[in-house]
């Protein structure tokens, strides 16, 4: 089975869906989720293969590495493909303004995102990154309000600038090495590129990828877009898409930029991101913006973990990412019915007891209260940072601890406020789409041992520079 299917199935679905809608609206409503279910099944099948046989490398078009378009179906990429598809399924657009268009764009996003997670060369990465960005621009404006249009325009400008910079970075690398295949680059780069050049290329790529990955200072679009977009879309972008961009950064860091100063650059950027996101969230009065800022902070934590880039660090990043993938979309869809201003949520629990209780649970997990999963994720992060040793990593660990207090400083008063006094207006709020995410979170509390073991296994299977060139020949089992 080819990993390219993970790109092809949803993208083809996205092409077919609008015409199908014209022929039979019912069929198109069923077809979308069905395609995602198929996608999940494909991921599961490929996952089995990857666990048994190791990462699967495919060159599309049959040409060998430097020329062909390489795909790499390793556990890391497949994990995110699966997470993306499942999250899209949970947040599938059923109602609202023009659900069919949103459905098409969601499928496109899933396809492009999966491709992004599995790409093994820079060219693919760039193209699919752009495709992902386009799909998410479309999703943000899908309700067509003025605020959405304005937010998207800014997002677009920033994204375009970032992409141009990333392209420049890719050009630098290509000019110096003559290849865009990640595995090859990993072996060629140390000799071919000087230190400043390597760092510049990384900085440029980071400038491009950082837009989606919500890294400082490229995340100025985040509060506006998440505040304006529908909660579903905000959940999807914050929950999965941002992490895909960070995943690409990790791929670059473990291959091309292994053993360079790039990890330190990422560490610095990530530390400022954490600080900026959480501190801005501390002051935010608008609930959605608060969640948006908090998402920046969480992405920063994930980037901190990835900057360690040994198996413990990668495992920590994956744990943080998966945790955030469950928590943040649940929060976004849950507060959709709430008043938007912070002070107006006083006494909300009287009318919406379940919604308030779920908020408390999610807030506690974000802060990292044992035995909730957020605690274990932070534990692994600290193990990774302090285990690496050295001043910068220890400082980052201290930052994580301090910022946890800040995090509690804005989430817990809000949670407390939900239970104090009688509200002026009784708000009825449902948890809605958040239910499966919260159930998954609770399940993770019980299954934390096996989950941690599996994440460790995924993290240690990530190919490093030495092992990044497993099978360059085109003779793959099950290759088309």
């Amino acid at each position, binding site marked *: 089975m080819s990993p390219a299917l993970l790109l092809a199935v949803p993208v083809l679905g996205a092409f077919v869906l609008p015409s199908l809608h014209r022929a039979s609206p019912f069929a198109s409503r069923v077809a979308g989720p069905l395609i995602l279910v198929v996608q999940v099944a494909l991921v599961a099948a490929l996952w089995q293969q990857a666990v048994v046989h190791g990462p699967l490398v495919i060159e599309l078009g049959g040409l060998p590495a430097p020329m062909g378009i390489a795909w790499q179906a390793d556990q890391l990429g497949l994990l995110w493909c699966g997470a993306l598809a499942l999250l899209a399924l949970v947040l599938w657009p059923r109602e609202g303004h023009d659900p069919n268009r949103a459905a098409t764009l969601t499928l496109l996003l899933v396809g492009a995102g999966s491709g992004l997670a599995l790409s093994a060369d820079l060219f693919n990465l760039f193209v699919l990154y752009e495709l992902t960005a386009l799909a998410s621009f479309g999703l943000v404006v899908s309700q067509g309000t003025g605020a959405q249009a304005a937010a998207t325009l800014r997002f677009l400008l920033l994204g375009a600038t970032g992409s141009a910079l990333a392209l420049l970075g890719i050009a630098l690398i290509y000019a110096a090495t003559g290849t865009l295949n990640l595995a090859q680059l990993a072996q060629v780069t140390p000799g071919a590129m000087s230190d400043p050049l390597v760092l510049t290329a990384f900085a*440029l790529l980071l400038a491009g990828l950082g837009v989606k990955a919500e890294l400082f200072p490229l995340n100025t679009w985040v509060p506006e877009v998440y505040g304006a977009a529908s909660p579903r879309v905000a959940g999807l972008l914050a929950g999965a898409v941002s992490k895909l961009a960070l995943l690409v950064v990790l791929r670059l860091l473990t291959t091309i930029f292994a053993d360079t100063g790039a990890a330190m650059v990422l560490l610095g950027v990530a530390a400022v991101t954490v600080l900026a996101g959480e501190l801005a969230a501390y002051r935010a009065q608008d609930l959605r913006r608060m969640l948006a800022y908090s998402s920046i902070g969480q992405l920063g934590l994930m980037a901190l973990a990835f900057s360690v880039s040994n198996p413990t660090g990668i495992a920590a990043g994956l744990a943080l990412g998966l945790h955030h993938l469950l928590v943040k979309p649940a929060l976004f869809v849950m507060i959709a019915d709430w008043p938007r201003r912070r002070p107006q949520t006083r006494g909300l629990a009287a009318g919406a007891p379940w919604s308030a209780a779920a908020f408390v649970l999610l807030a506690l997990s974000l802060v990292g209260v044992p035995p909730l999963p957020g605690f274990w994720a932070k534990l692994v992060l600290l193990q990774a940072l302090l285990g690496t040793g050295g001043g910068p990593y220890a400082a980052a660990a201290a930052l994580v601890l301090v910022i946890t207090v800040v995090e509690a400083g804005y989430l817990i008063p809000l949670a407390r406020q939900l239970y104090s006094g009688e509200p002026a207006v009784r708000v009825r709020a449902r948890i809605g789409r958040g239910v499966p995410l919260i159930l998954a979170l609770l399940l993770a509390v019980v299954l934390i041992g096996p989950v941690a073991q599996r994440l460790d296994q995924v993290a240690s299977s990530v190919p490093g520079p030495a092992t990044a060139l497993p099978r360059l020949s085109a003779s793959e089992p099950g290759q088309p």
Partner: protein
Amino acid sequence: MTLLDGLLLLSLITAVAMAWLGARAWAGWLGAGLYAGQLALLAGLPMPASSAVSFAVLGHTLHWQMGALGWFFALILVAAALLATWYAAGAWRRTYPRRRLLHVTVALNVLAMLILLASGDLLSLFVGWELATWSGYLILTQAGGPAERASLRYLVYTLAGGMAVFAGVVLVDVQVGSLQLADLRAAVPELSAGSLWLLVLLFTAGFGIKMAFVPFHLWQAEAYAETPGPVTAFVSAISARMGLFAMAVVLIQLIGPQHLTALQVPFTFLDAQGLLAWIAAITAIVPTFIALTQSDARMLLAWHGIGQGGYMLLGLMAGSALGAAGGLMHVFNHATYQAGLFLAVAAVIYRTGTSDLDRLGGLISRMPLSFITMLIGIIGLAGLPPTNGFVSKWMIYKALLNGEQPLLFIAAVIATLGTILSVYKLIHNTFLGQLRVEHHAVQEVPWSMRLPMLITALVVMVTGVTPGLVLDAVAPALEAIGLAAPAYHLGGLTTGNGNLDMVWVGGALTFGLAVGLAVFLLGSPSQRTHQWDNYAGGHFLSADIRFHYSHDFYPGLMRALAPAYRGSVRWLEAGLVTLVELAASAFQGLYRAAPLPAYLVVGVVLLLWWIQAS
């Protein structure tokens, strides 16, 4: 399932039962019964008691085991919960609308603290610590209003402490490669002085914040004082002592006094143990003198709770078996008299609606049993014979003198002086002097409240005369953390250079009082004056003029001490909060800045120029 599992399960059942039935009229009685059951299970627990439950996660195994030290604290914990719930079960419950929440929070706190006290490794210790912290937030925040703000302060402080502990735990994991207690104990001699210092500081700060050691003392008094009625007695008796338990485990059982004394503070004569002793001594002094300025009974007592915590650590860090025994024993003694004091204050609030020391007075004629409870309580708090507070403080003083620490001894005496002054203010302003007009109809509280109160007073007296009863529990606790126990008997202790036998002390006191009473009764004829008769230092006041001196107590002393109350720690705290606010608004302002793409292009040009140049 072991007996320990049974205890934890019963504790969980208590919490569930309170969540389900807590609003019923008889919920308090049910709760008290369940705590009595927990107490019975606790009494039958073998030492050390292991749990059959364990979790393997991330290469660590979390398991639970309660040793004699944990058992000692657990005994105080469950007994305090029993008495507080009993107190709340009867007539008192009608004064508080959110009874279910009250019962649930107490039950959750008992459960969380039992889990903490039964932790068998560092990871389960941290998990238990966090559970206790968060359930503590619930119990402190439940009353709403001022409690909401005070409890948030508690949360920020203790969470910061929790993060310090977290860092310590992960550092141990990284450096030792294991979180099992035995492995850390074995690895301590190999750790470098620097990393040992780091661990000591992280754990001390983390656990010390729960005990509200100076300079982290600001949060506790208000947070505790704002809890409803008997809950104040419960939290003051035990909650903060979790910090001492954890410190005893990590600093003494795991790191060990011999390694603490080997750590020198640069440029001073102090070692780590001396540093901790001085922090403890300052904590004994500063909050006690802050207590002296309070005009609310609950705030006054809560500030004393912090100061007495200083005595406990001072004993533990005195560096001898006697001192450590005194420190641990003070945990029990303090819990008993402090609970009695808070229950007496709750009784006053129940009848008069206030604990404002400027609006009370003369209640002795109306509430004599509450008065006796408070009297015995303040004698204990001040550390005077024949109460149990005297015994533990005697041991701590003796240990300081034997350990040739005269300065620490003087510090402890200064703190005791402040205590005596302020507890006199407490009992005078509440029970002595003239009764206020609006309190003429006040009666003693009902029996459901009297009994728990009187039981605490009885325990204070009985364990004061026979401290051997408490030392029976303290001695195995000391041995469990690797310290020797001093030689003791039922009536007191025998040390190399001085003995204490409270049976004799108590007997002599009783005899003296009896002689005094006899002289009083048989001697010169006495005149009985009415409570409202005035004596105003020569000024003539007739009985119809109310005169009860309570506001601005000790004016001369307060004027003399005024320069000392600078509130520098308050300034520090406010400054820190302002700093975070400023940084936050700076970052938020950054997110409003629009022309980011332009900056990016400039940045890239600079980068390319840098490559060109290098």
